[in-house]
């Protein structure tokens, strides 16, 4: 019975810790999203804004998968499993970007410079 009581106590403590982590994370996600929305209207260089957006999105992405999806508390196998799928997806994205790289296309089509910059930044980050 004592062992049960001890286990229950440790379970409640662990869940309480997680509960506070979830609340903090919700605030962090809200702040990061607000920053993303504000940052696009600031008069900074496009490359800086694009890079900031990519970094902020990555931070939000990993915050959710690590804490909300419990990957930080779970076995490493699950993390590796998900990362393998994610890596294949990122690899596909990069391969497609290289296949449709600006050098292979008619320059007249590239009036939309920001997206080209985004592609380049993304490839650089990846």
């Amino acid at each position: 019975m004592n062992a049960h009581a001890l286990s229950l106590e440790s379970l409640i403590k662990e869940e309480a810790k997680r509960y506070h982590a979830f609340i903090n994370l919700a605030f962090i996600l809200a702040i990061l999203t607000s920053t993303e929305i504000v940052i696009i209207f600031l008069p900074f260089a496009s490359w800086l804004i694009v890079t900031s957006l990519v970094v902020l999105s990555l931070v939000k992405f990993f915050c959710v998968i690590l804490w909300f999806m419990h990957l930080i508390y779970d076995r490493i196998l699950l993390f590796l499993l998900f990362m393998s799928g994610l890596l294949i997806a990122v690899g596909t994205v990069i391969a497609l970007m290289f296949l449709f790289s600006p050098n292979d296309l008619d320059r007249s089509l590239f009036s939309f410079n920001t997206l080209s910059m985004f592609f380049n930044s993304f490839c650089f980050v990846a």
Partner: protein
Amino acid sequence: MNSDISSAATVDALHHEEHSSTGIENKKLMMWLFLASDCMFFGTLITTHLIYRKLYPSGAAEEGILNIKNTFNIELTSFSTFILLMSSFLMALAVSAMHKGQLQSFRKNVLGVIFFGLIFLGCQVYEFTEFSMGNPTAGIPPLTLSNSIFGSTFYLMTGTHGTHVAIGVLWLVAMFFYSFSGRMNIHSAIDVEVAGLYWHFVDIVWIVIFTAVYLIEYI
């Protein structure tokens, strides 16, 4: 009726180890495998949209050049993004409550997730309706599935995401009603966790879509 599950049952469940070669519950493992494959699915959808956006910057609209910035409603999209993020938070609390055996708390949080999910879907329906009608007086042409490349890739990608959200809502509604059947116990925590994983995945996909599809247009 005592809705909370007894502490003894909670502790018993703690000691209930899944007998699998990986030491991970099969349901959970399968859901992570599915999510890994779904990453590839959404990865290709988002990339297709971005590549076509780059190849056809004008959008090839039938009625005038497409100015996406005027078509998009960033305030509404930001609101729905917040809603989805907060629904993810409530889902995490629902999973935590179920692990502690607090059925009442689980129900409240799941109800919140369902409500937020429905708000998100409502916003998406409103957004799609606005886009498809356009605003001729403001010089904003309609954006439909077939009148431009941008429309085709945009609706396919966001529509697929919306379908995922709708499936998630239906799943959680079923789980909510099941919790009143009296058959939901501490061993059901794994089922709630699996549903939670799906819901959080929908959230992370939106995090990427929000930045790569919406915000990038405003730079």
